[in-house]
């Protein structure tokens, strides 16, 4: 959470709204922000920290763990039309790497801006060439993209 808060400016620049969700009450969210996160991130958590005590939202997204009564580490990228473009769900002991979410959002934004005419190859990062899928590209991806181009 602190990593996301710390990179919030970058996400804002990309026009991304962040929403975090856990089963803790909004009162506990305030305590966590005031007593810990605000000491890790200047100014505290800048995005809404949602409370889902009954797990209804988590169930709807398939991240509710019935046995533990908690939500798994689920991350969803939702586009401006409300469509889910990417999802990742992890068990609790391993944390996420925000840079990968940012990269995916940037890639989805490129695809969206091209109205689906462009695609991003494996390992793509901003600044690297995109692919223009079509008959000419079949069998010719090697001319524009090699795995060694991945940063």
């Amino acid at each position: 959470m602190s990593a996301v808060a710390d990179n919030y400016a970058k996400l804002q620049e990309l026009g991304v709204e962040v929403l975090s969700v856990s089963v803790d009450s909004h009162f506990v969210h305030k305590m966590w922000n005031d007593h810990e996160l605000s000491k890790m991130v200047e100014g505290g958590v800048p995005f809404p920290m949602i409370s889902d005590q009954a797990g209804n939202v988590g169930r709807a997204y398939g991240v509710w763990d019935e046995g533990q009564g908690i939500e798994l580490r689920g991350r969803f990228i939702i586009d401006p039309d409300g469509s889910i473009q990417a999802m990742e769900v992890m068990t609790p002991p391993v944390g996420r790497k925000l840079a990968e979410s940012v990269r995916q959002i940037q890639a989805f934004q490129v695809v969206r801006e091209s109205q689906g005419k462009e695609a991003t190859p494996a390992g793509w990062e901003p600044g690297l060439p995109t692919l223009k899928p079509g008959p000419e590209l079949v069998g010719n991806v090697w001319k524009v993209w090699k795995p060694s181009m991945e940063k």
Partner: protein
Amino acid sequence: MAEPPAGCGRVTGSVVGGTPADETPIPDETPKEEKAMAVRVGQKAPDFEAPAYHKGTFTNVKLSDHLGKWILLCFYPGDFTFV
């Protein structure tokens, strides 16, 4: 946004941008059966409205209020966990 949070977060029963089928909260009375709505990429996100803490205030967040922007929605196991 100004409305104070009331009760638990709930799904509207609709997807983002859709019309909620029923505005009244439906209590889950069948906990044994996991009635998880299957989310899939390329499909509309389930809409929800839930209480939240945001920069010093308590508020309500409705996902569909953010239509038109990219959303990074992150679930995590609990506050005060360290990962």
